[in-house]
């Protein structure tokens, strides 16, 4: 099985980081993975995105035309990528930043006020991880142990104190109904 994820939003929202956590989780589970960032001037505050592929087969092109999963953290990203999501796929919307609804009825949509939840829970920069928590829960793939290990691989030793906070954010996403 192959699943393709596209994380899209503004630079600075941590999309590249959340993609990396997901990719590491795949690696720990012995899957084939690829992670490809946009690396243009958008890193300095424009739109940013990151493509992650997790597969049982070797990964071919790391570039995604039609994702199975879209995580949209701003309106331009939803506008740009909504139509590209595979039928039967999943769209996660940060509903505290995107007011409109998804227009399609052939995909599973989850509205999570991630930025609001992050602010309320003392982790204002971790809306991205709330969405990843929800995403994993949606697919029944939230394995607490693996999630913790994957986070440990991505949070540098210098910022070790942030590990617990990231974990908490993911749990908020996991438990959000």
């Amino acid at each position, binding site marked *: 099985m192959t699943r393709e994820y596209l994380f899209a939003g503004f630079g600075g929202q941590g999309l590249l980081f959340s993609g*990396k956590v997901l*990719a*590491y989780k795949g*690696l*720990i*589970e*012995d899957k*084939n*993975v*690829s*992670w*490809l*960032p946009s*690396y*243009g001037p958008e890193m300095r505050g424009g739109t940013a995105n990151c493509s992650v592929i997790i597969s049982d087969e070797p*990964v*071919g*092109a*790391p*570039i995604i*035309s039609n994702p199975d999963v879209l995580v949209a953290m701003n309106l331009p990203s939803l506008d740009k990528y909504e139509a590209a999501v595979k039928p039967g796929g999943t769209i996660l919307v940060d509903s505290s930043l995107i007011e409109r609804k998804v227009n399609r009825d052939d995909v599973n949509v989850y509205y999570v006020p991630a930025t609001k939840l992050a602010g309320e829970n003392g982790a204002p920069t971790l809306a991205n991880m709330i969405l990843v928590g929800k995403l994993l829960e949606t697919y029944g793939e939230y394995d607490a142990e693996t999630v913790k290990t994957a986070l440990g*691989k991505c949070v540098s030793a210098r910022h070790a104190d942030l590990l617990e906070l990231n974990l908490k954010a993911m749990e908020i996403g996991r438990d959000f109904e």
Partner: protein
Amino acid sequence: MADKVLMKGNEAIAEAAILAGCRHYFGYPITPQTEIAAYMAKRMPKIGGTFLQAESEIAAINMVYGVSSAGKRVMTSSSSPGISLKSEGISYLAGADLPALVVNCQRGGPGLGGIQPSQSDYFQATRGGGHGDYHMIVLAPASVQEMAQLTIRGFELADEYRMTSMILADGTIGQMMEPVSFDFEIKEAPEKPWATTGTGMKRKHNVVNSLYLSPEVLEIKNIERYEKYAKIAEKEALAEEYMLDDAEIVIAAFGIAARVAKNAVNAARAEGIKAGLIRPITLWPFPEKTFKKVIGTAKQIISVELSMGQMIEDVKLATECKVPVSLCYRVGGMIPSPEQVYAAIKEAAEKAGE
């Protein structure tokens, strides 16, 4: 999970170079390869090596010349416009028969171009780039694992043949992360009795130089170098073959283009189209023998490139123009989609079936 780590292609090059015993890196920042310099800046001081951000690309390549003359493994890295600047120094390395590793993480050109991936430095890399008759060994990784593996191989080949190895990557492979294992068997660098390390009053002076004012001597130097190149062409050409045995439509692609093409080949096979892929891993020497194998069986070859058609010339030469060769491309930092390549395969298959 074994001992694999998730790493960017550029970082994998840097780590592999350190494993290969490279303790001297000289560079100048340019997107999309700056992670190599950043990694070296972090690691080299901790392991007694040298990281130096030079005042320019030209300065950096000449520092490479200096360290190589002293017999040590040394590298530099850049992206397209920076490689043009380094080309003078690369020609001097060739003229002085010095081993070195140069990484080109290509971006769109010409000129300053853009910062997105490209393969349009193929001619520059495989034909030399600088002035004079010379070649580099050109290695084209298609994964982060190969970024590491071919870096180590690049150092080995450079030392063995006393010439420059170039890693010809692109922005995608440089920026993407994939699992990579560094479980390599590292060979010690060979003795370099030609290096200028001081005579110790025990031998004559070694001279490292690319200036030969006597045309008779310079002619012999060139001819000898080309005899060496002929040996390399015979021995070191490398390609991956994918579903080639019964392939009627053969894709030729390297690096990121080959990754995309593989998806398209799989899609075509699922539709019953006999498609296959030749992925050159060495671009110089070009894997001519692999291409000659499909003369007679292939009805059409499609060269998939992030350029206006550069490798396609080598494909035509290798197949002696006995198989029709067409081009499927995107340029300027764009990448062909698997759908675009699949459409090209389908069209070729329909034409071949007529």
